[in-house]
């Protein structure tokens, strides 16, 4: 049949229908612990056991509740790397919590695409190492968390803000040398054609020039006036990154460059 009713009176709703919807709502996140619900499946270790606190996990939109203080025993039979994982099998419609270990490195988990096919997905809840006498939880290991919408928006806001602050606005450059009263700068990490330069002289004059000007010619002159006298400002750009700035009267302190701002 080409079409099938789902949310209609009397129609049959299959678990895969709900799973697909949750999978979509969770931003097509393959699998993860749903943030903010109960204790988010926090793990702890002790007495050769790993304890998982209460939480809800979604695997391709299929929801599983892990109840309070669910415990998994670890047999101390030598030095090994291991995972505690939740297994979802759509082959036999089962869920279980188990461990998998390896001698030399953390083992691989089976992770089939349960949206497009039937199979097995092993979701890692905790990672550990053990010896014949001890069990150590890898506390640096972070499982996937399915975050709430407001959290994601807040994180995105922070990311965008950080991006804007580091890529736009003004930066003030310090010359690496001022030999012969010529200020020499290294300009890297900016697109010249998209910047506006403001060069301040000691006498308070501001000379503004677009980056496009200097990216076209190696030596550019800009005339300016100070106390009814004409001067010019010399901009010498030697690609890819060296900029020389000085006034025609750089012998006078007032006409020397005091600051270079780049507005991006």
């Amino acid at each position, binding site marked *: 049949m080409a079409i099938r009713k789902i949310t209609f009176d009397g129609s049959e709703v299959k678990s895969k229908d709900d799973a697909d919807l949750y999978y979509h709502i969770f931003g097509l996140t393959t699998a993860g612990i749903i943030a903010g619900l109960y204790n988010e499946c926090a793990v702890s270790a002790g007495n050769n056991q790993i304890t998982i606190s209460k939480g809800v996990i979604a695997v391709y939109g299929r929801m599983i509740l892990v109840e309070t203080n669910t415990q998994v025993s670890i047999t101390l039979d030598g030095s090994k790397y291991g995972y505690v994982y939740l297994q979802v099998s759509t082959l036999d419609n089962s869920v279980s919590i188990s461990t998998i270990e390896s001698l030399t490195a953390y083992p691989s988990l089976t992770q089939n695409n349960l949206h497009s096919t039937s199979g097995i997905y092993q979701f890692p809840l905790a990672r550990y190492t053990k010896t014949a006498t001890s069990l150590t939880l890898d506390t640096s290991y972070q499982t996937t968390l399915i975050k709430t919408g407001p959290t994601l928006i807040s994180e995105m806001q922070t990311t965008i803000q950080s991006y804007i602050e580091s890529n736009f606005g003004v930066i003030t450059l310090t010359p690496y040398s001022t*030999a*012969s*009263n*010529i200020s*020499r700068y290294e300009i890297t990490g900016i697109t010249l054609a998209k910047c506006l330069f403001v060069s301040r002289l000691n006498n308070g004059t501001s000379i503004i020039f677009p980056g496009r000007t200097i990216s076209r010619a*190696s*030596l550019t*002159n800009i*005339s300016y*006036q100070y106390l*009814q*006298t*004409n*001067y*010019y400002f*010399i901009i*010498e750009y*030697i*690609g890819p990154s*060296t900029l*020389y700035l*000085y*006034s*025609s*009267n*750089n*012998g*006078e302190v007032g006409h020397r460059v005091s600051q270079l701002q780049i507005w991006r």
Partner: protein
Amino acid sequence: MEYIQSLFSSNKILTIYRAGSCAYGVIGSASDEDFVVVLDEFSGMMHIPKNDDGKEYFVFGRQEWIKKMEFDEGLATYFKLFPDEVIGNIPLYLDEGFEGVYTSYQTREWVLVIKVQLSEIINFFSLYLEDGILTKLMWHLFRLEEQVLRFTSTGLWTLDLSNESKEKILIYKDNYRLQSQDYVDEFKHIIEYLKEVMNS
């Protein structure tokens, strides 16, 4: 002349002469035509590029031009690199009242200023060469090398250049953007030679 007069209608033009590559007879395929203009009752200096015909005018007030010719400390070194550009250079225009001043700089004893000029040149170009950077203006080092060699053996300072130097300069102008280390090394040798002459 009409163009400059139209821009500075209230100023008297004292002189206009060819400068840069034109003055030294080394015009390359990408060379602009540079002119120095000296105006009466004008304060300071201006650079006026005329983009429609590739001409550039370096406009100086009388006092500022004299400062340039006298290697005045207040001026950026850049302007003190070419005070010999008037030697043997017949101006396109020269006001009668300025003739004496112009001629005095054309005919001055170069031995009196050569060390000052060399000092400025060495300071200016060393700045870039220390960074391993080549600039277009460095072609002047080739012409200076020949001029200084001639001066030390004959006592004559002229703008004449051998065909070999001219060819070297034109090749350099076409290739300086490649920032070849060979040129950096060659210029450093020339700077060392100029230092020896200056200190002799």
